[in-house]
């Protein structure tokens, strides 16, 4: 039943295209983890925020901008949008129970989804890829240039975010706020703005993922739905409080899902998502904190 038509060339191809979709999951997963670490909530609207900004990119290109200028401009808009969402929607409820904030993000999900459909219409749109639709031969494996490009763009973004957190003063202050907001205030940090910046960065990561995903999944208001679920799974797999875990989790999930769909006969296209989630459940049974997560110790 399995592996009937196995060849290494095909296997390599499945892995590389898995890495490409995995990089997209990783970007969204990292966005989720950033917000989770700073505010202890899961932003259910992350996917719709990404979709909305991808539609903005589509409009910019539709109005004559070429790809990369539109890409960069979209990231700027996404950043401002993310900051705005935090300031306008999250800030008024930030001291409320977590469930309240989660409900607000679900409300935002629904609102953005509706707004996207209302502005751009429900029909599926084609979205340009900046990469040629060809393959190149790497050690006998036909690798799609688009997959390589997607992988590189997503990982470069993740790397930039990491450098920002590691080496800049503001990045350090944002990490400090995530660890101990009260102490950060005593250090002179404007905690509220750091949280808003975190939302801005998360929105940028989402926008990158959206624009990288759109050429293959096509542009429609629901395009990030499944990706968001994979990203949740990736974040939980890696350990919801671990940025490294989110990225590694995303890549692993992308590859595993692709291989399952290709080689395990009964999985095919339909059962990819459920089987990925079943796998996730299995990992969490063995390691509840995820691959890179920390066990939360509560001192009483």
């Amino acid at each position, binding site marked *: 039943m399995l592996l009937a038509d196995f060849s290494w060339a095909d296997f390599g191809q499945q892995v590389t295209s898995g890495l490409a979709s995995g990089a997209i999951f990783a970007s969204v997963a990292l966005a989720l983890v950033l917000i989770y670490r700073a505010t202890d909530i899961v932003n259910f609207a992350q996917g719709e925020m990404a979709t909305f900004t991808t539609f903005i990119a589509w409009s910019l290109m539709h109005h004559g901008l070429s790809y990369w200028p539109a890409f960069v401009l979209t990231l700027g808009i996404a950043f401002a949008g993310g900051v705005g969402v935090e300031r306008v929607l999250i800030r008024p409820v930030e001291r409320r129970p977590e469930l309240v904030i989660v409900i607000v993000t679900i409300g935002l999900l629904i609102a953005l989804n509706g707004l996207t459909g209302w502005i751009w219409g429900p029909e599926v749109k084609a979205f340009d890829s900046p990469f040629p639709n060809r393959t190149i031969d790497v050690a006998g494996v036909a690798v799609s240039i688009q997959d390589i490009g997607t992988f590189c763009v997503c990982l470069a973004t993740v790397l930039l975010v990491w450098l920002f957190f590691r080496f800049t*003063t503001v990045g350090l*202050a944002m990490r*400090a706020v995530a660890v101990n907001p*009260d102490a950060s205030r*005593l*250090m002179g*940090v404007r905690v509220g703005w750091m949280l808003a910046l975190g939302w801005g960065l998360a929105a940028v990561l989402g926008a990158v993922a959206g624009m990288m995903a759109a050429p293959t999944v096509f542009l429609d208001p629901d395009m990030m739905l499944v990706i968001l679920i994979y990203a949740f799974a990736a974040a939980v797999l890696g350990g919801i409080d671990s940025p490294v875990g989110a990225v590694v989790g995303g890549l692993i999930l992308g590859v595993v899902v692709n291989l399952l769909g290709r080689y395990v006969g009964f999985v095919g296209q339909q059962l990819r998502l459920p089987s990925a989630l079943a796998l996730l459940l299995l990992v969490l049974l063995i390691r509840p904190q995820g691959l890179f997560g920390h066990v939360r110790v509560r001192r009483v």
Partner: protein
Amino acid sequence: MPLLELEGVEARYGPIKALHGVTLTVAEGEIVALLGANGAGKTTTLRTVSGTVRHDGRIVFDGRAIGRRSPDRIARLGVAHVPEGRGLFSELTVWENLRMGAYVRGERRVLKRETLRIFEYFPWMERRRDQQAGTLSGGEQQMVALARALVSRPRLLMLDEPSLGLAPTVVQELFRIVKALNANDGLTVLVVEQNANVALGAAARAFVLEVGRVVIEGASDELRRHESVRKSYLGY
């Protein structure tokens, strides 16, 4: 004119009044101790100054009324508050904690000079700068919290029970450093302590709080001779 002046400061946690009008002053270049039993309002007093608890009354720092300002703005005026429990960033390294100390003054500009100065007082810290702060011993964590506050070159340093849970030798070392900084750099310190003995040893003046108000104040030597202070706080 004193550097810090509290006049009739009141504070409450919900229905419970914690401060019933605290009045005290700290002059520039002075070490002042704030003594009192558990629940007397020592911690709350410091928190009113750093703006982390709502209050009424007047708080003047360096000639400016700061009572309504947010904690981050007060920190930027030069008030460094090492809170109860130290407030370290336990998942960040020692070095990153020190970098956060320099945040108020534009981290990059001052970090190098200030840390060089600080490492003279805490030589071990330079060797262990890449260690996660949460993995240090209690005494070391208190030292890092103090060093982090010092990196900001505060006009006023407020320490909340620095001796809590530390071995006597560590406590002595800590107060020795605070005294040296005061003597060398004219550092102004307001220190809250339950360990009245060690606090009076370092401070020039002290205030004693009881149920949210100042009941005794004076020079440390006077307070040492004061009968009720001796009985209640010094234990002889």
